[in-house]
C-alpha cells in the first residue's frame, strides 16, 4: 500500500471528495425536506368559503360530509364577523378602514385542517361538489413548488455523485493497477502454483477497501466538523429563519458515518475488482 503513495493519496482524496459532496447534498436535501415538512404543517389549512345565508342544517351537512373524508383533523366554523376581526388584526393600523363598511363583505367559512396536504386535492374536489360552497382556497401550490425544488436538488445531487463515484472508481482502479503490475511477477507465480483468483484478489481488494475507508473517515471528519461549525455560527448569528430548517449535526452523524463508510468501501472494492479482472484473465 505504501509503495505507490502518490496514487494512494489520489485515491483517498478522490473518495473523500466524493463523500464530502455527497455529505453536502445530503444535508441540503435533508434541510429542504425539513422545510417541506414544516411548510406542510403551516399550510395544512384549507379554507372553504360558504354561500351567504345557509341554514344550520346545510352547515351541519357540509361539516359532516367534510369529516367523512380521510385525513381531516379538524373543521372549525369561522363566521363572517370573526373573519372580519381577523382581517382587521392583519391590517393592523389600517384596520379602521374596515370600520367604514356598511355591510360585512366576507363570507362565512370553514377552516379544515388535514394531516397531509397531499390528501388535499381529493378533499377539495369533494368539497367543491357540495351545495352551498362559494370557493375553496388552499396552499398546495407552495408545497408543490417546494417538493419540485427538493426533487431538483436530489436529482442534481445524484447526478453529481454518480459522476464522482465513477471518477473515483476509475482512480482507484488505476491505483490498484499500478500495485498489481508492480507485483505482476508474484501474481504470475501464484497463478502457476495454482492460487485461486480469489486468493490473489483478496489483498488487492483489501487495499481498495482500505483506501475507501480512509477516504470515508477523512470526509466524515470534514463534513461533520465543517457542518457543525457552520450550524453553530448560523445559530449564533441568529439567522433563525434559515437555521430553523437545518438538521442538527449530531442527529445525522451516525447515519453519515455509516453511509460514507459503506460507499467508500464499495467504491474501493469495485475499483480494485475492475482493475484485477483484466490481470487475472488466464
Amino acid at each position, binding site marked *: 500500500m505504501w509503495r505507490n503513495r502518490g496514487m494512494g493519496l489520489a485515491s483517498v482524496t478522490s473518495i473523500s471528495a466524493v463523500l464530502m459532496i455527497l455529505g453536502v447534498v445530503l444535508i441540503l436535501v435533508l434541510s429542504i425536506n425539513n422545510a417541506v415538512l414544516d411548510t406542510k404543517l403551516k399550510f395544512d389549512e384549507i379554507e372553504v368559503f360558504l354561500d351567504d345565508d345557509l341554514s344550520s342544517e346545510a352547515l351541519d351537512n357540509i361539516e359532516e360530509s367534510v369529516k367523512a373524508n380521510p385525513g381531516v383533523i379538524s373543521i372549525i366554523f369561522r363566521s363572517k364577523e370573526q373573519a372580519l376581526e381577523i382581517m382587521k388584526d392583519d391590517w393592523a393600523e389600517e384596520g379602521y378602514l374596515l370600520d367604514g363598511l356598511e355591510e360585512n363583505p366576507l363570507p362565512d367559512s370553514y377552516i379544515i385542517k388535514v394531516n397531509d396536504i397531499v390528501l388535499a386535492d381529493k378533499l377539495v374536489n369533494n368539497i367543491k361538489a357540495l351545495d352551498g360552497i362559494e370557493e375553496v382556497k388552499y396552499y398546495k401550490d407552495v408545497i408543490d413548488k417546494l417538493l419540485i425544488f427538493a426533487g431538483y436538488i436530489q436529482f442534481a445531487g445524484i447526478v453529481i455523485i454518480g459522476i464522482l463515484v465513477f471518477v473515483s472508481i476509475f482512480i482507484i482502479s488505476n491505483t490498484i493497477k499500478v500495485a498489481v503490475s508492480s507485483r505482476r*511477477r508474484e501474481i504470475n*507465480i501464484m497463478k502457476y*502454483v495454482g492460487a485461486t483468483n480469489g486468493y490473489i484478489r483478496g489483498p488487492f481488494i483489501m487495499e481498495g477497501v482500505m483506501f475507501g475507508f480512509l477516504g470515508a473517515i477523512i470526509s466524515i471528519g470534514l463534513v461533520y466538523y465543517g457542518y457543525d461549525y457552520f450550524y453553530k455560527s448560523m445559530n449564533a448569528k441568529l439567522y433563525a429563519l434559515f437555521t430553523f430548517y437545518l438538521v442538527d449535526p449530531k442527529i445525522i452523524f451516525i447515519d453519515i458515518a455509516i453511509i460514507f463508510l459503506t460507499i467508500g468501501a464499495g467504491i474501493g472494492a469495485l475499483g480494485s475488482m475492475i482493475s484485477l479482472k483484466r490481470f487475472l484473465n488466464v
Partner: protein
Amino acid sequence: MTNIAKEYRNGVIALYDINMEIHKGEFVFLVGSSGAGKSTLIKLILKEEGITRGKLFLDGMDITRVPNRRIPYIRRKVGVVFQDFRLLPNKTVYENVAFAMEIIGARPREIRRRVPTILSMVNLSKKASSFPDQLSGGEQQRVSIARSIVNNPPVLIADEPTGNLDPDTAAEIMKVLMDINNRGTTIIMATHAKEIVNTMKKRVIALDSGRMVRDEEKGGYSVEISDI
C-alpha cells in the same frame, strides 16, 4: 497417470494434430527449435491457452474444457519450472517454497514439516534463509524446482530449466530432476540442450513447425545423432 493429448491451434496455427500419451512416471524430452510449438504445448497443459480442437487429458481427467475457476485446481496437479527461475526476490528460499503451499491453503504445521524435507531433497537446506540474489543460478533453479514439487504434483513441466546455466550446473539440475522422476513424478522437459538429451537416453518427442515429427523411446536430440 495417462496423458492422451491431441491439440490444434487456429489463427496462427502453432500446433497441428499432436497426438501423444505420456504415462505416469515417464521422463519425456520435448525438443525442437524455437517456434516449433514446445511452449504452446506447455501452455495448453497449463491451461494458459485454450485448446482449439482435440482433447487433453490429465491424470485421467478431461481438461480440454474447464471453467476458469477450475483452472487453479488443475495447475496444482502440474508443477512448473522455468528457464528464468521466477523466484520472489524479497522472500527467502524457505519462504519462496512455503509460499507455494500457503497459496493452496496448506496448514502451517504441514508447511513447517514439508518445506525442509523438500529443501534437503534439492540440497539447499543450508541456504534456507538466503535470498535469491545471494544464490548461484543453479541454486536458484533448485529453489524453483523445490517450489514446483512441494505440493506433490503428479506432473512436473520444465521449460528449458537449464537454459541459463553452464553445463556442470545443468548436470546438477538434471540429477535433481532424475531424483524427482525416480520418486514417481512424471516429467516433461522442453529443452534445446543436445548433450543432456543425448546423455539421458529418455523418451524424446520432437516438434517442428507445430507438427510432431518424432516420438522415440531412449532417443537423442536429433535424428542424425540418434541414428549414429
